[in-house]
Each structure stands twice: as structure tokens, then as C-alpha cells.
């Protein structure tokens, strides 16, 4: 019979330990896993991107129900262990007593709450688990809400940046003279502070918190200098405290953490411990890399294999989009040092040397060579030969990145989080893992924080040669290496309101972009600053500049709007008249329930538009990345099966949404009953009327891909349908990458994320609707009206000159 293993704490360390153990010997133990959080193991370090909205919780789960089931792990989540009885070898929890043969304590640590009056008021929270993140997001949801972060270290700054991203007014109170003083020297700390301040985050150093004030809920933080900082939310990020209570109560040898030996054994041979709750050789750790090493050792100890934990060198990166920062080792003043600064570029590097060996490194603004330097530090390489050009990095020392990767010894650590060396990766590639996903599964490289993804890909490239092409994930186009998502983030956080400003701040490599990035940037500006930004026609593709679809022969097609696919005799007559007057060669009934006049000469467009306008017809935007059509069926007005007025609702939706610009085109449909004659279930937003109301679904597709919509909600009134639709489209407008249709964007952010904002959170839904309406005050108008004006035709549209006679001489 296998022995009973009880694990306390379902955190990052225990998750990894269980994997190691199961891989070594899956039958060795009957495993019971206790977790105080009401959920299983997840990648805690990614809570920052979850807080900023860049990731969803679902994306950071590392072990799901299937995994526990498949591996026979009994889960007791949401159940804290309250006592360990070493004599009878049992643990006590709300669910009763559980016996163990071996016990593992992996209780991590808890946020340290600075001991001042008011630190227990509602609204004062730590930053440790998903519940904290949810509480913060709730506070951030209220418009104009303010957050005070106590502590300007790694955790505090990630929280500050994320909450700022979420629209809160953020103040960071830091006790020391400069930010992240444990990892950064003052110069780099200053640069970081400047960067955060430019995003609108207030930073106060040497801030001694005196008290937290509020009646029934937090309202402000009072400093010793008597200054007051109003707050709807206070985040305690002043440090962590190892969660050692169970160990102390059980009489285990405990100092700052539960003391373990090299085999991860506590003072009781049947109890082992790992993670942030332990102390090894006088050190308590707060980053995952060493914990994963502990996991390997502890798993081996459990099956009586020899292994020993050795304290590793740990490096730090800050996970804040747009901030490149790397720090490792010792940067005390007593050593020699080499410093490089480029204030223009905001780059700062500092290498600390001792006996011609690198012992410390701080990089800010450009961290591309961090691995190259870190490697030299870990291997204690003598750098006297290359000292002159050392600070300029690998390129200056004559190594091309791929060559440098090829030259790296197998022992070089590539993935810091998971302690994966180059040799392990190369071996896995030899074993058939020829892409990133396979490598992640086989080696765990790049599976945690993802910062080393680029490097892992370079190892793939240098090992496989031409068989592997490093994916061009990054750049929006040749003008910038930043992704669409990065750029949207930069525009928002730095409040950039012109295209040249974005190009300047984001370091565009070309003077004025190209046909790929300019339309995207123009869209992002319109979406972000609807009232302030003036649409740039020169950054529009031809169709959106001329408000008609260009054809292969340079003529255009014109599609007037037919609201909800409904029309009238007089509209049809106006269309017929225009077709005759302007010699339209082809008339086609489109798949979007309206009429397309094809083959119109460019010179005729303004007059034709004027005629159609006079008859009450407006542009159908058949050319736009914007609202296209709302298809409807006739519904309850005529159809014997119709349950609601589907065409009436379609018309209402179209009248609200028309003219809006979106990342890609948006199409809707409303069907009067589940027979679904308007094909609502393959649209970006589809509504199906039923007896009891309306079923709203989103993210369908029927173009290059075919995909059924996913349910968003079932509601009872037209008003609810309209609000949900508008909120969904606004969320899409604010977040999607240019040229991602809604279904592609939803696949990236997850339907759950969308539902949380559009459906679950009423305040957010209404705010989205408000923002959409603000934008529509500018854009709900017919572009043809402007372009049909005589002065527009003369000064912007017509030929500059007519030389048909002159050139003929």
C-alpha cells in the first residue's frame, strides 16, 4: 500500500513539487492537497498582468481539475489546515482530521501589513492572491477612484502600473530614498520613477506612514509629515512575511522561516517544507526560481533519492509593460564599476566588477544583453580581455545574437523561473520538440513569466538551423518591433494624442510609418481620443478616404445604407435614378441585404452622393472597418413564427451603431425566431428572438473562417439587448488589435473576461456605453455630406490641373 502524503498549501512551490514527484514515481504516495484559497495551483507571478487586464485568470491556471483527477490528487481547496499534530501524525482542518505518513508544508507567505492604526479598515488589502486582485479591480471600476500603494518594491510597482492602467489615480508611498532599492541603484531608481511619473503615477519617497484613516472604510493615508493622501483603496506592498504559524505551533525549529536542511527536511524527519515559508542557510526566498530548485530536491527526498539544495544567484525583472529593467547581484559602492548612460534614449547600465569578474549588474531601458552578462556573472568569467567594450554588450564584443546563443555552454540557464538550462532545451529539441509549445511541455522553459520566450526561440533557431524561423510575433510592421497590444498600451498610458507623438515615444524606425502601421495608429487615436483627435485622411486606406470601394479598374462601388435591410419605393427609385444618371454598369444585391452600385467613375462620386443624400440615403460604410450591416428577418410583424419585432430591433441597433469605427468590420443580425433566417449565429453580434426575450451571442464568423457565435446573455427587453451590444462593441473598440475581427480578439482575451465586463459588471457596462456614445457624437454622421460640398470637391477632390490640351502640342 502506498504511503499517505499530505501537502499544505496549493501554491507555486507545491505545484511544481507534485509534478516532479509524479514524474519520478507516480505510485509512491496517496496525495492529499490542502489549499486555503478556494482554487488550485496557478501562476501567482502573473497576477500583475491579470490586474492590468493583459491576461485573464484562466490563462494563468497551471493545474486544472483534469490534472488533479488524472494524477489521483485529492483536492481540499478552500480548506485551511489549522493545526498539525505531530504525535499522532495528523493534520486538522474544517473537514476533520487527515492522517499522514509524510507531510509537506508549502504555505508561502502573506502580505506584511505595516503596523499602523487603521491597517485593518475595509479597502486596505495586500497583493498576494486572486481575491486581492479582484478586490482591487472592483475598486478600480469606480470612476475617478484613487489608490495608494504602500511600498515601492517589485510588487508595489507592478500593482501601481496595473491600477494606473485600469484608470485609477495612483500614488506610491515608499519608505526608502529611491524605488526598488534592493534591486536598483539610485540612478536606475530615478529613471524608473521618471517613467512611472510620466504615466501619471505619483511617487513619494522617504514616506513614513503614520496612520490610515476612514470611517467604516479607508479614506486616506496620513504621513508623518502630516500630508494626507486620499484613497479609495490602499495596497500593502511593504513586504511579505513567511507563513510559519503552523510550524511554530507544532514546535518545529523556526526562525524567520521554518528551518530546513539541504534535503528540505524540517526538524521533524517526517515533515518537509519548501517555498517562501522556509529558511535555508539563513536565507528566506521571495522569487520562484529558487523555490523550483527546492521542489526538485524535496520530491527526490520523498522517494529517498539523494539531492541537495544549493542557494542560486537570483535576478529580478519588473513585469511592467514598457519598462525594461534587469538587476542581479551586488552593486555596493566598494567595487569597481563601469557605467553607461544615454539620457536621450533613457538607457542606463552599470556593471560592478571584482577581480575582473562581474559581480553585479543593473540595466534600465535596454536589457537585451542581460542574459549575456548574467552568464558571465554566474560562470565568474575573467573579462579583462573584453573590458574596454564590455559595457556595449555582446554586439560590440563581436557576437551576433544567434552565434552568441550557439556559443553558450549547455549549462547556461535560459529560463530563470524554471531553472532550465540550454542543454536541457537542446536535448528536448533532439528528442522531437521542434516548436515553442512542445518545448514548454517537455522542459517548462518559458512556461512561467514568459520573459525568456525570445531566447528559447533563439535556441531553437540556432539548434535547428533553417528548419526553424523565429516567429515575427513582435512587430506591428517593419517600422516598430512593438506589438499592437504594446502600442495601444503605450498610447493609453502615456496619453499620446498624435501619430507623430506615438512614433517618437515608441521609437519608430521610419520617419512617418507605412501603409500597415499608419491606418492602425489612426484607428487607435480615434478610439482613444474621440473628441480631441482629428481623423488623418492620409493615414486612411483608399476606401475609407474616398468613402467607396475601389475596384480593380480604379472605378468605385457605392452602397447606400438600408436600415435593417428594409427599404421603400422612394429609396429604390432614388437608387435607380442615380444608377441611370451616372451610367452605373452593374447593380448587385449584396449578401448584406442592400444594393451595390458598381463601376462608378471617381469624378462622379461627389455628385452621386449629393443626389443620394437628397433622397435621404446615407453611406452604408461597405468599405469601412466599422459597422457594416444589421441583417434582419421580417419577424413578428409578418412572419407566422416571429416572436419579436426583429427588423424593428435591427433598425434601432443600426441607427445607434452606424458611423462608428472599429478595429475591423462589425456585422450584426437579428432573427425573429430560432429558425434564424437572418443567420445571426455567424455574426460578430447575433440576436435571436424567442418568446421570452432575446438571446444575444457574439464572436461568430462566416468569412475566411466559419465559427458559431458564443452565448453572451439571455435578456428580456430590447434595451438590454442594445446595452449589451454597445458595451461589447465598445470593449472591442478599446482593446482589440487593428484588423482582428471580434472572434479573433475574443479568442485572445477569453470569453470569460468579456462576460465579466459586459455582463456581470453593470457599472462597467454602463461606462462602456457612455464612452461609445461620446465617440458617436463625433462619428454618427454621413461622411458623404462633407465630401459632396462644392468647396471640398474643388480643393480636395478634383484634379490639380487639366493639361489635356497643353501636353498635346
Amino acid at each position: 500500500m502506498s504511503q499517505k502524503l499530505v501537502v499544505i498549501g496549493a501554491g507555486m512551490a507545491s505545484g511544481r513539487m507534485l509534478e516532479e514527484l509524479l514524474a519520478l514515481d507516480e505510485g509512491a504516495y496517496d496525495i492529499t492537497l490542502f489549499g486555503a484559497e478556494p482554487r488550485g495551483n496557478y501562476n501567482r507571478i502573473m497576477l500583475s498582468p491579470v490586474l492590468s487586464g493583459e491576461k485573464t485568470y484562466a490563462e494563468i491556471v497551471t493545474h486544472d481539475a483534469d490534472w488533479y483527477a488524472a494524477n489521483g490528487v485529492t483536492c481540499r481547496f478552500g480548506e485551511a489546515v489549522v493545526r498539525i499534530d505531530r504525535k499522532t501524525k495528523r493534520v486538522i482542518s474544517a473537514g476533520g482530521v487527515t492522517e499522514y505518513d509524510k507531510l509537506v508544508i508549502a504555505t508561502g507567505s502573506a502580505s506584511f501589513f505595516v503596523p499602523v492604526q487603521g491597517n485593518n479598515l475595509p479597502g486596505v488589502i495586500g497583493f498576494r492572491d486572486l481575491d486581492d486582485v479582484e478586490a482591487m479591480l472592483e475598486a478600480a471600476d469606480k470612476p475617478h477612484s484613487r489608490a495608494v500603494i504602500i511600498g515601492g518594491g517589485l510588487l508595489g510597482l507592478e500593482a501601481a502600473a496595473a491600477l494606473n492602467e485600469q484608470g485609477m489615480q495612483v500614488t506610491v508611498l515608499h519608505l526608502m530614498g529611491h524605488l526598488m532599492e534592493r534591486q536598483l541603484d539610485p540612478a536606475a531608481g530615478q529613471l524608473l520613477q521618471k517613467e512611472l511619473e510620466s504615466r501619471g503615477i505619483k511617487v513619494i519617497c522617504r514616506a513614513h506612514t503614520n496612520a490610515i484613516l476612514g470611517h467604516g472604510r479607508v479614506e486616506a493615508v496620513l504621513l508623518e509629515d502630516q500630508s494626507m493622501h486620499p484613497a479609495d483603496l490602499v495596497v500593502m506592498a511593504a513586504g511579505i512575511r513567511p507563513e510559519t504559524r503552523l510550524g511554530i505551533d507544532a514546535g518545529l525549529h523556526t526562525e524567520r522561516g521554518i528551518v530546513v536542511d539541504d534535503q528540505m527536511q524540517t526538524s521533524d524527519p517526517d515533515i518537509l517544507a519548501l517555498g517562501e515559508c522556509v529558511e535555508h542557510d539563513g536565507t528566506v526566498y521571495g522569487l520562484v526560481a529558487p523555490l523550483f530548485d527546492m521542489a526538485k530536491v524535496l520530491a527526490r527526498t520523498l522517494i529517498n533519492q539523494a539531492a541537495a539544495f544549493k542557494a542560486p544567484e537570483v535576478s529580478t525583472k519588473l513585469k511592467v509593460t514598457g519598462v525594461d529593467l534587469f538587476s542581479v547581484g551586488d552593486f555596493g559602492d566598494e567595487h569597481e564599476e563601469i557605467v553607461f548612460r544615454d539620457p536621450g534614449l533613457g538607457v542606463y547600465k552599470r556593471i560592478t566588477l571584482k577581480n575582473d569578474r562581474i559581480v553585479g549588474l543593473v540595466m534600465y531601458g535596454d536589457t537585451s544583453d542581460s542574459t549575456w552578462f548574467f552568464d558571465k556573472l554566474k560562470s565568474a568569467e575573467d573579462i579583462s580581455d573584453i573590458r574596454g567594450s564590455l559595457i556595449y554588450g555582446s554586439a560590440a564584443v563581436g557576437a551576433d545574437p544567434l552565434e552568441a546563443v550557439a556559443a553558450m555552454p549547455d549549462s547556461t540557464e535560459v529560463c530563470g523561473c524554471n531553472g532550465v538550462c540550454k542543454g536541457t532545451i537542446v536535448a528536448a529539441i533532439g528528442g522531437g520538440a521542434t516548436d515553442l509549445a512542445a518545448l514548454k511541455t517537455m522542459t517548462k522553459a518559458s512556461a512561467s513569466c514568459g520573459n525568456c520566450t525570445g531566447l528559447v526561440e533563439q535556441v531553437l533557431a540556432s539548434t535547428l538551423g533553417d528548419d526553424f524561423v523565429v516567429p515575427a510575433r513582435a512587430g506591428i510592421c517593419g517600422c516598430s518591433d512593438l506589438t499592437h497590444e504594446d502600442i495601444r498600451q503605450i498610447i493609453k498610458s502615456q496619453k499620446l494624442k498624435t501619430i507623430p507623438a506615438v512614433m517618437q515615444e515608441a521609437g519608430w524606425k521610419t520617419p512617418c510609418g507605412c501603409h500597415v502601421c499608419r491606418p492602425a495608429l489612426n484607428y487607435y487615436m480615434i478610439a482613444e481620443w474621440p473628441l480631441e483627435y482629428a481623423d488623418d485622411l492620409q493615414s486612411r486606406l483608399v476606401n475609407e478616404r474616398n468613402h467607396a470601394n475601389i475596384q480593380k479598374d480604379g472605378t468605385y462601388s457605392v452602397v447606400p445604407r438600408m436600415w435593417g435591410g428594409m427599404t421603400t419605393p422612394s429609396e429604390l427609385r432614388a437608387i435607380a435614378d442615380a444608377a441611370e444618371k451616372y451610367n452605373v454598369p452593374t447593380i448587385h444585391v449584396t449578401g448584406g441585404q442592400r444594393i451595390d452600385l458598381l463601376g462608378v467613375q471617381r469624378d462622379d462620386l461627389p455628385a452621386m452622393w449629393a443626389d443620394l443624400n437628397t433622397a435621404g440615403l446615407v453611406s452604408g460604410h461597405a468599405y469601412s472597418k466599422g459597422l457594416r450591416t444589421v441583417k434582419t428577418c421580417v419577424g413578428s410583424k409578418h412572419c407566422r413564427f416571429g416572436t419579436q419585432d426583429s427588423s424593428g430591433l435591427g433598425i434601432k441597433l443600426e441607427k445607434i451603431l452606424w458611423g462608428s469605427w472599429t478595429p475591423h468590420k462589425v456585422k450584426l443580425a437579428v432573427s425573429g425566431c430560432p429558425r434564424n433566417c437572418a443567420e445571426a449565429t455567424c455574426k460578430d453580434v447575433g440576436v435571436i428572438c424567442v418568446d421570452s426575450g432575446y438571446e444575444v451571442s457574439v464572436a461568430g464568423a462566416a468569412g475566411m473562417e466559419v465559427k458559431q457565435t458564443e452565448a453572451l446573455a439571455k435578456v428580456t427587453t430590447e434595451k438590454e439587448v442594445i446595452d449589451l451590444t454597445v458595451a461589447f462593441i465598445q470593449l472591442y473598440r478599446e482593446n482589440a488589435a487593428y484588423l482582428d475581427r471580434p472572434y479573433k480578439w475574443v479568442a485572445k482575451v477569453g470569453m470569460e473576461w468579456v462576460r465579466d465586463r459586459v455582463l456581470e459588471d453593470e457599472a462597467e457596462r454602463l461606462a462602456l456605453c457612455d464612452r461609445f456614445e461620446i465617440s458617436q457624437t463625433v462619428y454618427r454622421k454621413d461622411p458623404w455630406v462633407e465630401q459632396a460640398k462644392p468647396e471640398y470637391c474643388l480643393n480636395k477632390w478634383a484634379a490639380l490641373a487639366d493639361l489635356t490640351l497643353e501636353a498635346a502640342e
Partner: protein
Amino acid sequence: MNNWIDIATLDDIPPRGARVVKTRLGCVAIFRTADDKVFALDDACPHKKGPLSEGITHGNAVTCPLHNWVIDLETGMAQGADTGRVKTYEIRIENDRILLDGTRLVDRSLHCADGAA
């Protein structure tokens, strides 16, 4: 010998934009770059005659609106992997007026007439 024809002022063309001049043998596109350089090219892409004046102008180049060939405005050469060349015309700027060389337009008429034959 040049035959300079005054066609417009600089401000008649939006920066990073273009407008056309009509001739008997089709349009000539007049481009103005972000830094106020002016170029004149046949308004027909070497690929499939797309109207270059309707493209997006960036740096000293324009992207054709039909299939995204990129044409260098100075030389008329297609960039990158594409090959082909558009005829270019000389331009002079005097007191913010744009002057186009008429001699070349005549040459072109002849040349195009030949080509079309």
C-alpha cells in the same frame, strides 16, 4: 530644354498625400511628402495600373492602393521583391508654386503612344 508649367501651390496637396494632373494620356500623380518634397509620377502602378495617387504616402515612397506594391517616389522603382518602374517627371518649386516639366509630358505622350501601339 525644360518647359515649366505652373500647376498649383504646395498647399493644394496635403502633406503625405497626392493629387493628380490630367493629361491626354492619363493622369500624373503629384505627391507631397511629410517634409514637403514634391514628386510627379504616372498615376498607374507597374503591377496592374492601380491609381498610385490614392495610395498611402510614407517617407519617399507610396504604397499602391490595390495590392500594396511599394513604389519609390524618386526613382519610380518598385521596392522589395517586386519589379517594375513608373515614369517620373521633373518638378521645381518656386515661391511655393509647383512647376511640372511639360517637355517630358510630351515625350511621354509619344512614348506611351508607341507603347500602346
